[in-house]
């Protein structure tokens, strides 16, 4: 995919030279009580991070807080990219619009590249439509383009969710156990496609993962959550 639309050259150079794509300063996350606190990390553009830890420990809450869906209990989340289009979010249940077609779901991601004042009912235009075509092709779902998402298999739905995130040209992708319980063959092909596309747009990927081996294979950095604190492997 050719990147001509989202952030300017100036923005990109800022990401590389200044504070990095994302910084969590003294962050505490949770609902009423903190599940994880004193999180202090910096993430550089293009890094892949896997968060590991048992269920119910706050991994999803951390991801949702970074996505801006929950207010942090304490501390700051600093990023130097725009909220619109800057974050691609793939929740555990993928968050696809089940009654819409594959193409409409991917188009939802492409829409973030239009300014927020652009009327919701207007079509996206040829340029973005071409980009949608190439996104569908890169994830090998071009033949499913008109099918409603609800009739797709788990693996196909995951590809749609990834295409929807990647077409935003986001600086940060947050994925919550998005590989789920897929078979190894499916996982490998999805990982391969995702990694190459992510490196093309220099996006950072933060993913919650249950499988230690899979995390080791994909990620550059591994965060582990234990006793309400975040630890990084190799620290």
């Amino acid at each position, binding site marked *: 995919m050719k990147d001509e639309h989202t952030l300017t050259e100036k923005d990109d150079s800022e990401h590389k030279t200044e504070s990095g794509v994302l910084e969590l300063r003294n962050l505490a996350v949770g609902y009423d009580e903190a599940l994880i606190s004193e999180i202090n990390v910096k993430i550089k553009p293009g890094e892949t991070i896997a968060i590991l830890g048992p269920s119910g420990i706050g991994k999803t809450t951390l991801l949702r807080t970074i996505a801006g869906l929950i207010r942090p209990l304490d501390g700051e989340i600093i990023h130097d990219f725009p909220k619109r289009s800057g974050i691609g*979010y793939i929740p555990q249940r993928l968050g696809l619009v089940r009654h819409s077609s594959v193409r409409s779901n991917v188009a939802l991601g492409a829409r973030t590249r239009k300014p927020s004042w652009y009327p919701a009912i207007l079509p996206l235009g040829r340029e973005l439509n071409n980009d949608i075509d190439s996104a569908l092709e890169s994830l090998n779902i071009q033949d499913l383009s008109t099918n409603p998402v609800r009739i797709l298999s788990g693996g196909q739905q995951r590809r749609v969710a990834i295409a929807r995130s990647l077409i935003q040209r986001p600086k940060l992708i*947050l994925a919550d156990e998005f590989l789920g319980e897929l078979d190894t063959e499916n996982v490998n092909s999805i990982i391969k496609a995702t990694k190459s596309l992510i490196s093309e747009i220099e996006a950072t990927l933060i993913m919650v993962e249950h499988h230690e081996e899979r995390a080791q294979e994909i990620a550059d950095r591994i965060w582990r959550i234990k006793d309400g604190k975040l630890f990084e492997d190799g620290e």
Partner: protein
Amino acid sequence: MNKKFIITTVILLSLTWMFLDDLVEDWGQIESAPERLETFFNEDLWPPDWSVLEAEEWADGTLHKPDGELCTEDYEFFCSKAWTGMVITIKMAFISTLIGFMISVPIASLAASNLAPLPIAIPARVILAGLRSLPSIIWALLFAIALGFGPLPGILAMTLYTIGYLGKLQYEAIEGIANAPLESAMAMGLTHSERLVHVVIPESSNDLLSQLMFMFEYNVRHGTVLGLVGAGGIGMYIDNYINPPFAYDKAFALLIVVFVVVVIIDLISMFVRSYVIEDGDVKRPKWWTVLLPAGIAADYYKKFRAKDSDESE
């Protein structure tokens, strides 16, 4: 769980009985009711007078429409009170339902707590509650006073009521949609209108369509009531027949026409919804299932679905 259920049911039934006993003073009324009803049915209602399906024949032998215009149609039925009245009622219901729907969707999106913050949701809900707290017949009366008799006050009354009624059903449907697609859209930075058009409407399309069709059917049925305040349509003829000089058998025939139209709308509704419903839950149902009691129809659908999936495999 079971114990709680039994206790709650007993309490609710006891309350119902207490209220009923409090309100009804003369239980003796019930004793003679079947007899009186039977007399009314046999003497006034049955058989229905199907002359409402024919054009009016004037003294000179010419056929005329109810408004006095000469009947030039090939079939006399198209000049009858049943046809002309029903067509006006359906047109009124169609306009009111569609305009009401287009206005209620944006208001409902502001009233849904998963799309809008409470300071916006509460006023939106108050507006919807206000619109629906006056029955459409009262709205029609107000508009009839302001604008005079005819279809226009009826249309306005039904439109306002539709906004209030449909809006409530819609925001409840919107609040019931899965959270994940909405959260993804919020995290992606999509605006309220983008979320409404591209996430909420497709996700709740089955509910929205079913409510829209229900509201259309409701407005057709209610159009018959609005005729009572001079709002036009088939209701006006029914009103004429239930007032002196009474012609209950003709009114009964018109009510049967309304019933048939309602059944047809229900059938269309099932067909429309079968295109958006989850995995084709109601896939091309047979027309006569509309007439079945809900339980039997549900069993039928299950068998129908099972057969359908076997075939597709």
